[in-house]
């Protein structure tokens, strides 16, 4: 099973409600996956870059990290903690250095994702608990994706939860299971990609990051999944300014999309879309198998 959602706003007036809308969408699919849940929100651009970090011992790991990190990288750093997660903000040019310094200063901290605008929150538990824990309903943004997991392929842990992020401002949620992920992972490792887990979905995320690093746009990268990834998948993907959907050619994992002048929305089921504004007059359709859909701001 698993339930996935995505929301890409066209109407700026809805941006303050993005977190609330996406939260409701995900909670409505709770019975598709009770193991863990996660959401990625693409917020407003600023002159700082962000790293979302996670720790099992946040009181210990986050305390004093801002000052230590600022000293290590020689740039201003701020940290906003939310439960087990925290968002580290610093100068964009220092982002890679900051990642390395965090790992050196606090080896138990895990990096959830990084970029100019994305924040990623994911934990074991039901969507409602995860959304409440991180105050996702109050978050504003331009687009976001979410996932509630029924694990089949790897352990039920924070790191095994979706979304997976393997490139700046890139992340992916997946319903399905991949059968050639070990081979693809080996090839990507040889290319220099770094993996945090044994999870099949992380391989799909890294595959897209690798394709885009080679100059492909989101649509072209998604096209590549159809020939290079084997297995069952419906992917919903976010980039800094884009939002994409693709289903494998067999397309047995469910998917519904809705589009109005105000937004493009994705849900594993229509249930996820019923509270969206103007849904009764939206264009609602089932995305075709082996067909790439993507939108960019």
């Amino acid at each position: 099973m698993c339930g996935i959602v995505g929301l890409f706003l066209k109407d700026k007036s809805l941006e303050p409600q993005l977190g609330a809308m996406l939260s409701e969408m995900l909670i409505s699919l709770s019975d598709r996956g009770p193991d863990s849940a996660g959401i990625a929100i693409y917020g407003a651009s600023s002159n700082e870059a962000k790293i979302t970090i996670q720790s099992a011992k946040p009181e210990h790991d986050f305390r004093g990290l801002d000052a230590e990190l600022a000293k290590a990288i020689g740039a201003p750093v701020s940290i906003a903690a939310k439960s087990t997660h925290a968002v580290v903000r610093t100068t964009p040019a220092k982002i890679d250095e900051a990642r390395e310094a965090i790992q050196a200063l606090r080896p138990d901290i895990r990096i959830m994702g990084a970029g100019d605008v994305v924040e990623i929150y994911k934990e074991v538990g039901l969507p409602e608990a995860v959304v409440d824990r991180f105050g996702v309903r109050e978050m504003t943004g331009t687009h976001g994706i979410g996932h509630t997991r029924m694990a089949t392929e790897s352990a039920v842990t924070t790191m095994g939860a979706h979304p997976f992020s393997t490139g700046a401002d890139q992340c992916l949620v997946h319903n399905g299971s991949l059968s050639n992920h070990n081979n693809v992972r080996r090839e990507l490792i040889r290319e220099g990609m770094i993996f945090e887990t044994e999870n099949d979905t992380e391989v799909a995320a890294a595959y897209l990051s690798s394709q885009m690093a080679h100059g492909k746009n989101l649509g072209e990268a998604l096209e590549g999944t159809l020939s290079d990834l084997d297995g069952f998948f419906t992917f919903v993907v976010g980039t800094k300014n884009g939002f994409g959907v693709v289903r494998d050619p067999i397309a047995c994992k469910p998917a519904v999309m809705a589009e109005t002048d105000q937004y493009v929305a994705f849900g594993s089921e229509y249930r996820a879309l019923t509270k969206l504004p103007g849904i009764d007059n939206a264009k609602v359709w089932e995305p075709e198998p082996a067909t790439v859909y993507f939108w960019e701001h």
Partner: protein
Amino acid sequence: MPAINLSKAGREQSHASRVFDLAEMSLRELNQALHDLAPGSNETAWEVLHPRGSHSVAVGVDQPVAIDVRGSVGYYCGGMNDGGTITVHGSAGPGVGENMMSGQIIVKGDASQYAGATGRGGLLVIEGNASSRCGISMKGIDIVVHGNIGHMSAFMAQSGNLVVLGDAGDALGDSIYEARLFVRGKVESLGADCIAKEMRPEYLELLQGLLDRAGVTGVKAAEFKRYGSARTLYNFNIDNADAY
């Protein structure tokens, strides 16, 4: 899309219909009330409000009642229907009318995967498009789709009739047994052992009857092509031994 003339039961909006608002009542209450109907009950008209993509709406109906569902439904709407006339005034999720025994289901919008799967009888009408695996393993049901159907439709279909006014996706009728497939538009590809067949007068008559029952007007049976089993997979062919 051709004009549609709803079935008698579906058209009659009885003023005395029993209304279930799923925004206020549980799905279980609705389905239990439907299952509690005794033969010959006077409560023959039902209306379901705010289904909001709920699963299993009006599953297991076994009395000849008319149920109007005002909105879109999730998985398995009208599953195992035995005699009810269920109209979905919206779209249906996966498995609408799965294993229907008799009666009628009309979906005014689109239907997701495996509409009418394993159906043994009755009539399923999809006024929009149906997606993949429509009529998979059908065993006697009649399915009429006004729009298109997706890939792998009528896979291992055993008996019954699938009528498609639009186009069919890849691998239509793969490993088909004795179901009859009628497609008016283009067929992307035929599955293993499925072939185009001659439209003999008895099939034109059968198809016209199905179109009439489904309320389709303005479309002639002669506009369709018939597909069915080449029957070459029925018995093991020793020349294929190497393939296993």
